[in-house]
């Protein structure tokens, strides 16, 4: 089918694009815009590596047709830092070493940011459960969870 006009607001910048309806949001972010921080893992919604925030909600971008994201606000890992300052969730992942190969890290950080924005007062068990849609194949979950708890604490105390 012919390409359709799509207007995406990505990390605050508006992009007016012509997109084939079969392209996923993930493919457009990576291949059209060149924002390769968002990762493609399983591409079936199971691993969470492609997590981005759309209108405040964490979603797996491999399951979203880009044409349906027209007019929506999209935040990717590239949009978290501001004025050279890392977002507290990013900083916490560095502080705790909450990454190994790094492939799952952007998805974990975006999912964690959305969870903390929604409710930073979750218990460790609640964060663990709520991050069940993100898989780390290096299995470094202990440090990841430490990072999320540290970031939640940081955001809670500075809010």
């Amino acid at each position: 089918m012919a390409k359709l006009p799509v207007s995406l607001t990505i990390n605050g910048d508006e992009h007016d694009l012509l997109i084939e309806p079969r392209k996923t949001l993930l493919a457009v972010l990576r291949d059209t815009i060149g924002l390769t921080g968002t990762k493609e893992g399983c591409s079936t919604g199971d691993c969470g590596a492609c997590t981005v925030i759309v209108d405040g909600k964490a979603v797996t971008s491999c399951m979203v047709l880009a044409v349906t994201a027209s007019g929506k606000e999209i935040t990717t890992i590239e949009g978290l830092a501001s004025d050279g300052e890392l977002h507290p969730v990013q900083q916490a992942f560095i502080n705790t070493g909450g990454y190994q190969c790094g492939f799952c890290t952007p998805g974990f950080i975006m999912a964690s940011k959305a969870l903390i924005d929604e409710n930073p007062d979750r218990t460790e068990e609640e964060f663990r459960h709520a991050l069940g849609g993100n898989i780390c194949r290096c299995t470094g979950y202990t440090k990841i969870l430490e990072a999320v708890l540290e970031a939640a604490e940081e955001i809670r105390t500075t809010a």
Partner: protein
Amino acid sequence: MKSFEFYEPTTLAEASRLFAEAHAQLLAGGTDLVIGMKALTETPESVISLQKIPGLTGITTEADNSISIGAMTKVREVEVSGDIQQHHTALAEGASEIGSIQIRNLATIGGNIAHASPAADTVAGLLVADAQVDIASANGERRVPIDELFTGPGQTVLRPGEIITRFRLPSPASGSHYIKHKIREVMDLAFIGVAAAVNLDNGTITDARIGLAAVAPTPIRATEAENLLNGNAPTPELLEQAGEAAAAGCSPISDLRCSAEHRREMVDVLTRRTLQHALERASA
């Protein structure tokens, strides 16, 4: 993914006309359809998004505590809704069992039901809520009880061009509960799903409802078990009999997830257990 024509109608009538064409698929949240199109198990020639049609989202509560849920309401919204948690606990619990939060932020309750998987996690909760399903097409509207919606795996009574618009939940039971039998804490499909809802009248069970998922070609009510319970006091022996009756009334299959024998045995166990939880909530 194969190419397709993409439509974003803004009225139900237009969506229905487009959907009545051959090789057309509806797009709700996309969590089943987009994955199916990638795997080429779905190769629609046209995809009709329901996302731009007003009036299909949201949860509203009437004065008599009856609740109406728009078909395009996100599963996550059903899960966190205070009214659903309070009055239809089994449905909120079922919603919380689907995929991950990322998926529940996309998936819709209408999609979960219209996909007609016998293992859908919201279906047992809707069964015990005695939900009515509002259906619209270019030819008009009709209403079907949820236990008459399904005809087989992936099959419903929906005719070409018909679209589920809303679920209507009449006045709630005082206690309900859902148990998903699974291996993983999240991101798993149900071996079986069991929901129970009860009212208690001076220590006597009334309006017992039991909904079973993934134990038959369609989701089913365990009506024989319900009949055993109604009008009686909840004793351990009675719950045992209800579990056995529910197990006897199902027709599970063996598949790569587990055996028919295991499913049947677990219907017995989990019917008892969901009933206990529902009864505790009803007497709280």
